[in-house]
């Protein structure tokens, strides 16, 4: 039923009246679903692969490795610039997806070499950095301004569905093939290639004609977007809020420290977050279109405040665990797609990829700062002080953001 809608308007955008999501968006969702199944298959078995097959200690891989990576940020911005400049979002996204697909074969090829494995994983992450902004730009440009939230909601729902199925598929496969890890890697590669094929065959690039009066897309244009007051303010608050929220890793570590149930099911806690994220992505994305994406984005952070409060209260037991993970997933559903929808409203079509890339790089920077601050505060002041400090900081950022952006955004 979705597939017919793409032909209904000249630019391939879904008609606002039908409130359907464009076929392009569904296809991009399918690409992400397959890609996430593939990636999560690998990442969920990697720890066991490291220890039981390679005999490597995770100590050697570094704790903060992968949270922030200068090379990957550069690649992200450069790729986004090329995508905007040549109006070629699809080729850049294909390059990113294909790079990650190839990495799945690199894992068995790297064997027990830690340097080899690290390189493969770094290239995989670069592929992710390269493809995210052009893919999001395609989602955005394939949708009408009034259905941006819904479009991103559908995409994130499908994306999270992949992340949810990947680990289960990997472990089921592992038990069938008598723990032959290379079989999981090869299967992961096959699924990733399917994703690339869906992108190549069924996703339409947005090649709007170069309007004569349009400003030229130059190298500095991406950062020049920050000269726009509304976008600059958005980026500032996104970075601050990202810094004031603690990473998934620390949410799960704190949980397992106070709750035996969480400790036993530690590797599955991410699935507990993914479930509500998956279920609420679409309804909350659609809600963003109605009440204003920025308002929902800010409101969604209240869920995270509750997560911090529950963690600081050292509640344990199944109910507390379900509440924390439920709120954590709701937080993602209420902030991820709405933020993209909000940014899409602020960014002109011709520079949307670069704008997304700039914002996503700042998000990564905020996450990195957050992890450093959290680790430092925890060591010096202990868990309760740290959680209280982050909660206070988050509340302060939210209040300032709500007051300063009241006009113009909501």
């Amino acid at each position, binding site marked *: 039923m979705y*597939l017919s809608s793409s*032909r209904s308007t*000249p*630019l391939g955008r879904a008609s606002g009246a039908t409130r359907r999501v464009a*076929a392009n968006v569904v296809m991009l969702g399918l690409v992400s679903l397959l890609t996430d199944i593939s990636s*999560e298959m690998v*990442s*969920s078995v990697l*720890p*066991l692969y490291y*220890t*039981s097959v390679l*005999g490597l200690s995770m*100590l*050697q*891989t*570094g*704790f*903060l490795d*992968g*949270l922030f990576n200068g090379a990957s940020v550069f690649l992200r911005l450069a790729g986004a610039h090329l995508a905007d400049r040549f109006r070629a979002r699809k080729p850049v996204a294909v390059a990113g997806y294909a790079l990650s697909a190839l990495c799945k074969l690199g894992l068995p090829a790297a064997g027990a070499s*830690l340097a080899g494995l690290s390189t493969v994983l770094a290239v995989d992450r670069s592929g*992710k950095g390269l493809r995210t902004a052009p893919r999001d730009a395609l989602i955005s440009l394939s949708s009408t301004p009034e259905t941006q939230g819904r479009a991103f909601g559908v995409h994130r729902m499908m994306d999270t569905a992949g992340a949810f199925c990947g680990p*289960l598929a990997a*472990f*089921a496969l592992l*038990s069938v*093939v*008598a*723990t*032959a890890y290379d*079989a999981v890697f*090869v299967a992961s590669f*096959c*699924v990733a*290639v*399917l994703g690339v*094929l869906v992108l190549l065959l*069924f*996703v339409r690039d947005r*090649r709007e004609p170069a309007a004569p009066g349009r400003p030229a897309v130059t190298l500095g244009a991406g950062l020049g977007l920050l000269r726009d007051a509304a976008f600059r303010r958005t980026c500032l608050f996104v970075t601050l809020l990202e810094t004031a929220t603690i*990473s*998934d890793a620390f949410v*799960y*570590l704190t949980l*397992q420290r106070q709750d*035996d149930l969480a*400790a*036993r099911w*530690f*590797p*599955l*806690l*991410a699935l507990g977050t993914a479930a509500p994220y998956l279920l609420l992505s679409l309804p909350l994305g659609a809600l963003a279109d109605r009440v204003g994406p920025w308002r929902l984005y800010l409101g969604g952070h209240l869920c995270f405040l509750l997560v911090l409060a529950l963690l600081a209260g050292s509640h344990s037991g199944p109910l507390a665990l379900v509440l924390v993970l439920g709120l954590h997933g709701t937080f993602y559903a209420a902030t991820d797609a709405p933020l993209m929808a909000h940014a899409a409203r602020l960014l002109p079509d011709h520079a949307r990829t670069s704008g997304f890339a700039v914002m996503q790089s700042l998000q990564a920077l905020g996450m990195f700062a957050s*992890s450093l601050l959290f*680790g430092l505060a*925890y*060591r010096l002041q*202990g*868990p309760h002080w740290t959680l209280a400090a982050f909660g206070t900081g988050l509340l302060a950022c939210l209040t300032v953001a709500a007051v300063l952006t009241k006009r113009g955004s909501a």
Partner: protein
Amino acid sequence: MTDTPETPLITRGRLTAFAAAFVLLAALGIGYGVHAAHRQDVLTHQGPGAAPAAQDLDLTGATGEILFRDTEPGPGYGFLATVRRSDPAGPRTVGRTSCERVYAAAGTVVCLSTEYGAIPSHHVRILDSTLGQLREIDLGAGAPNRARISADGRMASWTVFTSGDSYAANTFSTRTSILDVRTGALTPTLEDFDVLKDGKPYRPVDRNFWGVTFASDDNTFYATMSPISTGKTYLVRGDLAQHRLTVLRENVECPSLSPDGTRIAFKKRVSGSTTNPWRLAVLDLADNRETLLAETRSVDDQAAWLDDSTVAYALPAAQRTGSDLWTVPADGTGAPALLLHGGFSPAPLTTGKQ
């Protein structure tokens, strides 16, 4: 990109191409999986290794034997087995209990087991000398990788290793538990113990513990502590009753206390390289003197003392699956010697009366 918005994208041709690619990729994935499963089966189960006996092992009163996990390719792969210490290469007795890792002392056995499935589950099983189950503890999704029993068979400890890696973050956690087999009292984690380092409280967020070894009073123990982000490891001495840990020394992993309680065998990080990071060493607790042992290959195992002058450990087997067991003198002299082919997780059987 020759598409224009006017032409339909989802055409019969493209769908056919996709369907063909789907079939090819599915064939590749399934074909490779079947091949890999067969290869794995040949490597583990189709070999000359001993078959499991009709009856399970009986370790009651056993001395002078070594209990281990049989990894000789054959029908006994993965089951617990014993050999005579005096004739380790001789015939082995294979039982019917399967464990990923095992340790035993004075008639108490700790067995770590894994059942694979869509969600793999792990258990710690405490067994008596006839391998009857005394207690089972559900470890959930955490893969266990170290286990110890105190010399008198009363205390058990194990370490669970969990890690999730996702786009959002890398997470890592080890969790070490201690069980008093006699009273049933379980200490689920060492993470809420007070840690003293240089006389001051020490509490990094990412501190992890692994590899417990017990002293003869069943209250004092030694373990590894590591704040993961620092990449450092510390030897800590624990006081179970006081819930207190004291940092003794840096760069000590997987301690193993000698039967006479005077020395600790451990993994020492000797190189930043990833191919040969560790050497086995022994620390004399009286004068803090460290001695590197004659084994120069990198050992990633918690060594087991066969007696007061010899430690045993597993190394990956050359050119085959599984691992071999080796011994080396505990004073830095001599040379490593092969104990037996196709074994893992050695434990000398003692009656607990030293």
